[in-house]
């Protein structure tokens, strides 16, 4: 495969590319274990975080990743409402481009915005989440975390639970994890399942999805879904789909528990589980930094080479 020019989603990716990127991430994590957590790999490059949707965690993770490799970082945050009024999306990107930036980490509220940005910009675009479409670095950090736990994903059953229809995390994981041999299940209430999700089996039966699962990923449930009429009530969701200690008994004995954050404790996940021995939520955060370092490194050094 050719050099990676953008990271928008996993269309056109193969297993070798995933493994190479995760291998780089492992090297990057070694940097994070040093007392001096900084290498000069991206000295002279400038990375912009361009967030049209609020997200403190992802933004910090990317900014830290860039700084650990000595890149300069600038940040732009714009409210989603400005997109409806002016033509600020493209104009903002072109203004930033005029400042001689090398990479753009873009978070956007609508599917396709990262693709649109990649059409207009000459620098590398990293999709940090576009609407319901994709969140590829989240899927990469999930794969990284899962591989650490399970060694291989070949034939492993990964159950994703919750608001699947609106989940970019699920779409990206359904693209990525099967490349590593995993079998992805996505479970949730009928109103929150898409009619099709390539790379995943869909089910409204949580117990079926959890049965003998090697790992379980729980998604955040947004309260707006009740207002939209996609779900009758929070009470019903909790009764039918909350991942609890009892339900988790159907999964493999030590199946790790992942959550992309931020978490609604006692809504999608029984509160105690979040801090329990199965939880890998903090591990995911650390993996996220290493993976994002690897992505920026592959994009910027790969392009320059």
């Amino acid at each position, binding site marked *: 495969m050719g050099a990676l020019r953008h990271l928008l989603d996993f269309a056109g990716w193969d297993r070798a590319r995933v493994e190479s990127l995760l291998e780089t991430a492992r090297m990057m994590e070694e940097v994070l274990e040093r007392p001096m957590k900084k290498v000069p790999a991206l000295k002279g490059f400038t990375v912009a975080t361009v967030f049209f949707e609020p997200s403190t965690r992802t933004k910090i993770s990317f900014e830290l990743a860039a700084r650990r490799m000595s890149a300069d970082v600038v940040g732009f945050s714009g409210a989603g409402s400005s997109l*409806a009024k002016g*033509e600020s999306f493209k104009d903002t990107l072109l203004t930033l481009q005029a400042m001689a930036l090398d990479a753009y980490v873009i978070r956007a509220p609508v*599917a*396709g*915005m990262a693709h*649109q940005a990649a059409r207009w910009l000459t620098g590398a675009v990293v999709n940090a989440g576009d609407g319901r479409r994709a969140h590829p670095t989240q899927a990469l950090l999930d794969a990284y975390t899962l591989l650490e736990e399970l060694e291989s994903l070949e034939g492993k059953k990964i159950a994703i639970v919750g608001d699947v229809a609106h989940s970019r995390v699920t779409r990206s994981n359904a693209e990525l994890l099967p490349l590593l041999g995993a079998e992805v299940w996505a479970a949730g209430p009928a109103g929150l399942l898409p*009619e099709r999700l390539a790379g995943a089996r869909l089910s409204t039966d949580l117990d079926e999805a959890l049965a003998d699962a090697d790992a379980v990923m729980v998604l955040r449930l947004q309260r707006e879904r009740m207002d939209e009429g996609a779900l009758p009530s929070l009470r019903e969701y909790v009764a039918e789909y909350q991942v609890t200690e009892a339900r988790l008994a159907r999964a493999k004995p030590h199946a790790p528990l992942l959550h992309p954050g931020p978490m609604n404790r006692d809504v999608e996940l029984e509160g105690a589980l979040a801090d329990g021995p199965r939880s890998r939520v903090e591990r995911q955060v650390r993996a996220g930094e290493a993976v994002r370092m690897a992505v920026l490194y592959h994009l910027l050094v790969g392009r320059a080479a």
Partner: protein
Amino acid sequence: MKLLIKNARLVDGSGEFGNADVLVEDGHIASLAGGDAERVLDAGGRWLVPALTDPHVHLRTPGQETKEDLATGLAAAARGGYGTVVAMPNTEPAVQEPEQVRALLDEARTLPGARLMVAAALTKNQEGKKLTPAALLARAGAALLTDDGRTNEDAGVLARGLVYAAAAGLAVAVHAEDAGLRGGGVMNDGPLAAELGLAGNPPEAEAARIARDLEVLRYAARKAAALGHAPRLYLQHVSTARGAALVAAARAEGLPVTGEVTPHHLTLTEETWRGFDARFKVAPPLRTEGDVEALIGALERGELSAVGTDHAPHTAAEKERDLENAPFGIPALELAFPLLYTELVERRGLPLPLLIERMTTGPRAALGLAPARLEEGAPADLMLFDPAEKRTVDPERFVSKARYSPWAGRELAGWPLLTLVAGREVWRDAALA
């Protein structure tokens, strides 16, 4: 002044008539057998057809002239081979008073371009609640009543509007989509929308609304018949196989309904959305290959008897917004004919007279206008096109203000070289000697 168009191959919706020399005098076809004229134009064996009629365009005037105005819109129409276009009333303010209709018609008469016909709102501010003064609007010259741009949610208001418009001799056009089923959909609902993570607008939203509107029409027809009137319903931009089947069944039954189909629904599918490009964002949305096949079949059989472009210009910047905030609409006046000539006649073997019929007499019948025929005494609304020369679609060269196109870069044949409206030259291509 007399104009002689020599050596043209004549075609209209009723058939092909071989080569002829057409004499144009006083805005009419004076003779198909030549004659003396001050000006002579050698058509070089190219096709001469009646100028096209577009029953569905958005010229954005008044209020949104950054998108299009009468001058650019009518010039674009002339360039596309259209002699007559019907402008939709979803402007700012909406066209709903007789004075507005007159003012638009007066302004258009001063402009070199296609002939303007004006559609007025069916309800006040197109809100679907209070009817507009149909009789006064008809007297002012309105061609049609419609709340296009909006959906008529109240069936009772639509029924009364149909009866009232019938008394005034006007057809009612509807954008048939169920607002609730459509929801916030930006593209066709289905597996692809789910894959791309975009909100879907299901084909059933169109079918459900067409089914309802046909029942509304049945009721209105019964009411109006008692008064000696016949309401006419015009279903704009039918985009689904199911919608087309409902229209076909209703026509077979004798209901006074006409179904329209657009160039984009005849030639593009939802697959174009894989590129995440708002140039393909339109309502109703681009559907599937199966729908395209069904629409072409329905056009061929006359179940959908009118082609309307739904020319819906926006600024390029608006179409570069994200896929939720970008406005719906595709501009097509300048290439609808070459596109359909290339895709349907050249590539799929649709008879040329049939395409001409659906782009002239089909929409004209819905508007209550006479058929477009090449015969002595008929108005000299004519279009000359070249079936052989291929050109690449270059939106930068559009005269419309909307200089982008889903078909940019496509190579098409059948470009209009000359358009006459009542004998007046409104478009002449540089390639025509």
